[in-house]
């Protein structure tokens, strides 16, 4: 038994009941602090807006983490589920299909408008179901494949959905002339979230949006923890570590993988349904490949498979994207005498980050212990076995 393994085992033993209680108290305090955060800012402050987006990204990153982190299936087309979720709210919560007249559980003002208007809570459930179905459909062709090939199939799937989003304002694949997505013009306006017992959300007061996003993030976080510690979660990790061994242990890999895709996708769909309503538009330009990489960078930065790591990665990258690059660093090129707009380079910076992280700290900022051992001693099988024991 080598030093690393000993240390890992000591750490595991140290996590006794007392430290677990402490961790719970710390978590509760952190959640309370995050929940009270909006009171320190204006109700319409851009900080709350950015934080809301960050929380939605947490939801997406946690969803992608199920597929990539837990089950080890590299998914480069996650943006597809964001798109499907967003279009669900666009279709079922706006006046886009103006020839229909369906209203379910929406406020008085909306009942006079044409189109399909369902309450956001219904829409988010539909979005989760749609995307789970799409995830399973995507998962199906990848079942026979491994590793890199899965990445390519998922990427192709994401691109196909993106193309459909951009071009389907006059028929899909050049067939017919049905306007499905309104292309780059987008579907707008989208109904605001309308929860029971509270006032309708407005664009002026962002606090309710923030709390809704926080609620969504907490629910998804809870689901993630429960899934990780469940039979299914262990099956995912087994499939990730060694698929052949997992099969011979009697794990139904087909079902396990499809569930990973479906559950991961449904979280992306819920996040999409929220963002569609929050941004008040569903626009094909939002659904580019680079967004998939953006979410992937979050979970890699935080640490693949590590739930808290993913939360941290999502919040960090989200704020780098919304705050650091446009506000703080934007004057940097002109100060050193270069003439370009740093916001253009957002994704170059993320690409750089991916390379740096992979070369210098591949296990992420808050690594999962299994991954940590794997990266620390690549090729040293004993360590991995030691930790798994």
């Amino acid at each position: 038994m080598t030093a690393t393994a000993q240390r890992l085992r000591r750490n595991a033993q140290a996590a006794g009941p007392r430290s677990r209680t402490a961790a719970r108290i710390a978590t509760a305090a952190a959640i309370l602090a995050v929940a009270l955060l909006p009171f320190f800012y204006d109700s319409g402050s851009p900080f709350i807006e950015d934080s809301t987006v960050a929380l939605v990204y947490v939801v997406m990153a946690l969803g992608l983490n199920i597929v990539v982190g837990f089950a080890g299936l590299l998914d480069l087309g996650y943006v597809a589920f964001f798109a499907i979720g967003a279009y669900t709210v666009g279709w079922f919560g706006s006046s886009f299909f103006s020839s229909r007249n369906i209203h379910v559980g929406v406020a008085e003002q909306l009942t006079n408008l044409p189109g399909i208007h369902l309450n956001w809570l219904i829409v988010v459930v539909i979005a989760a179901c749609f995307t789970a179905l799409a995830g399973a459909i995507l998962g199906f062709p990848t079942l026979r494949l491994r590793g890199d090939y899965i990445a390519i199939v998922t990427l192709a799937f994401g691109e196909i959905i993106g193309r459909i989003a951009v071009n389907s304002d006059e028929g899909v694949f050049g067939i017919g002339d049905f306007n499905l997505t309104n292309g780059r013009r987008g579907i707008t306006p989208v109904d605001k979230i309308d929860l029971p017992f509270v006032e309708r959300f407005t664009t002026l007061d962002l606090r309710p949006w923030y709390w809704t996003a926080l609620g969504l993030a907490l629910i998804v976080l809870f689901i993630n923890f429960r899934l990780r510690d469940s039979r299914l979660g262990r099956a995912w990790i087994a499939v990730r570590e060694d698929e052949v061994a997992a099969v011979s242990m009697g794990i139904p890999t087909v079902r396990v993988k499809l569930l990973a895709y479906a559950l991961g996708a449904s979280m992306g769909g819920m996040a999409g349904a929220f963002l569609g309503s929050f941004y008040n538009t569903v626009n094909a330009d939002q659904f580019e490949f680079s967004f998939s990489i953006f979410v992937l960078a979050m979970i890699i930065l935080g640490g693949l498979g590590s739930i808290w790591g993913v939360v941290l990665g999502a919040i960090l990258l989200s704020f780098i994207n919304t705050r650091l690059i446009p506000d703080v660093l934007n004057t940097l090129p002109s100060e050193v005498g270069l003439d370009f707009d740093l916001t253009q380079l957002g994704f170059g910076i993320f690409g750089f980050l991916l390379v740096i992280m992979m070369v210098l700290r591949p296990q992420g900022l808050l690594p999962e212990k299994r991954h940590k051992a794997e990266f620390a001693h690549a090729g040293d099988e004993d360590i991995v076995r030691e930790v798994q024991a």
Partner: protein
Amino acid sequence: MESATIPARPARRPRDVVAEFISRFGLIAILLILPVAYGIQDLQNEGDLSRLATNIKDGLSNGAIWALIAVGYTLVYGIIELINFAHGDLFMIGSFVSFTLMGTIGLTVATGGFGLFFGLLLILVLAMVACGSLNVMIERVGYRPLRGAPRLAPLITAVGFSFILQNVGLLWLGGSHRGVPDLIESQKVFFTFLGVPVSHGDVLALAVTAPLVILLINFINLSRIGRAMRATAQDPQAARLMGINVDTTISFTFLLGGLMAGAAGLIYALYQTDVWFFAGFTAGLISFTAAVMGGIGNLKGAVLGGLIIGIIQQISDNRIGTEWTPAIVFAFLILILVFRPQGLLGEQTREAG
């Protein structure tokens, strides 16, 4: 005695026969859908196949470019089983180098035939060398440190490099399409063959691609370092034991892939008379599809796949609409991976088993 102990061969069930048939001919059938469908349509509407033939001709010259890029994917995949995601963007850098050098050398539409030939030859060599060395550098910085790491790690760095190269392109020539001077008058008809006009661009694409590919295949089959590459691809450990410097061999593979991407960059710039920083992304995916279609790791397969994808793309551009072409190519990619992951000429691999 012995023959009596051999158990009777189990009868082949009809299901197995069907499955085998689909695996063997399914992909070919899928590939024939578009040409056959539009061929019949042409015969009904116009009475001849010249439109389809023109599509196929254009497809072949486009496909020559994809073939050059696909060769790079397949070489790298064959040796270290990595999808070099940055390869498409490397090709884009090649087209940018060519575009910039045209300005530097001062080639214009007015340049005479002799000067044009040597100028373009010089640009070809420089673009190839630039892309080749860039590819070697990327391998050295991004992939070699991760040789022992889990397989996802180098793939993720590759994606990272793809973004970095795209942004280099964005800074270099800006975000909009740039028109390349039409040096070779690429649309001008060179000769007409069976009613199909063959333009300067078509001739150029085939005249550069064919010798390069033949040279490459022979080099890998006949030269000493080519043999080292094949040995490393089969078993890096054993190759090392045989005294092959595996790291150098892998670097050399990246160099070869980069050279081809550089050549593809120049042809693309001359043929399409347009360069764009984002062109590499789509080109990369199309070429990867080509490499998979031919059977990844198989050079001839990559070339064949490139030509086929070129034809599919051209038919789709011409009949369905340019905006749908990427979606159609990607749909083909998924279909291939579902029905025949080993591709047209490929063997069963660990990945696609």
